[in-house]
């Protein structure tokens, strides 16, 4: 396993990539939340009283 490259440019790139991954995970969580709410809402009418 080779060592990751060192230097300010690579460190900055790693930081940017970490932020992008964090952002993508956040978007994924929000998306799943929205989908869940919309799907549940669609079934509310199915409940008979």
């Amino acid at each position, binding site marked *: 396993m080779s060592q990751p490259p060192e230097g300010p440019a690579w460190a*900055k790139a790693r930081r940017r990539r970490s932020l992008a991954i964090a952002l993508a995970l956040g978007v*994924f969580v929000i998306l799943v939340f929205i*989908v869940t709410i919309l799907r549940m809402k669609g079934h509310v009418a199915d409940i008979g009283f």
Partner: protein
Amino acid sequence: MTETTARAAAPARWQDYVELLKPRVMSLVVFTALTGLVCARTPMNPLLAAIAILCISVGAGASGALNMGFDSDIDALMRRTRHRPVPSGRVQRSDALALGVILSLFSVGVMALATNLVAAGLLAFTIFFYAVVYTLWLKRSTPQNIVIGGLAGALPPVIGWAAASGTTPLNAWLLCAIIFVWTPPHFWALSLYVRDDYAAAGVPMLPVVKGAAATRRWILLYSLLLVALALAPAASGLGGTIYLAVAAAGGVVFLILAGRLARSSAGDLTGAAEGLYQVKGPKEARDLFAFSIGYLFLLFAALLAERFIGLPPLVR
């Protein structure tokens, strides 16, 4: 397959990762999937519809990243592709593959949650078919690679239809068939003027294996089939008068260009001195390649336009 990428001198930019997703292919996939979704005529929450289209586009991007990862060895040998992020060393091959796998799981998972298992299953099959069956097997082994592999590019309207309705009726498969039959003349026209690229990389494209004359004949044959098939939605309860007009007029132009290409010497070798090939008459091939994109776009745009303005199909 060999590892072709060396450690880059500079870190990858975000644009390199976007390029891995093949955004131009994604745009066509989004457009055809949207057409399938709208043509299903099934009421759907607009937000869920947008998420379904997002999943299909991300799935297409994932296929592109996997393709660029798996194909980095042959991409490095072709002029047209050697500047892609992996062969140029800007992105590691393992990073491209990891991005492809993660986006595949994301797109299929969210599609299953947002719509139904039919759409999610079709999306998973499409990604697998393109990344594994086409890229790793067909592309490297048979001149029929893009004929069979074209199924992956043809499925998005069926996925869109399934996302809306949970079913895949005959009209959805008709849209799939149009793209499936469109793919060979489209890519063979391209391969006629980049034949030496494919030959250098050892990719058995039709012009490399069977020659330019045979390829031009096959292009004409598939064009005839495509133009006839493109008229079918007008008789199957899918297309209306706008669609019929576009399919008929576009079909005539397509056949003229395919006929002109068949009579030309596009792709013929005039000198075979150690790979220094001179290609004659590529304009006919370029014209057909360019028009084929516009033709497919217009066919699907006509269907979309008819839905949005409420024009009924010719046959109910």
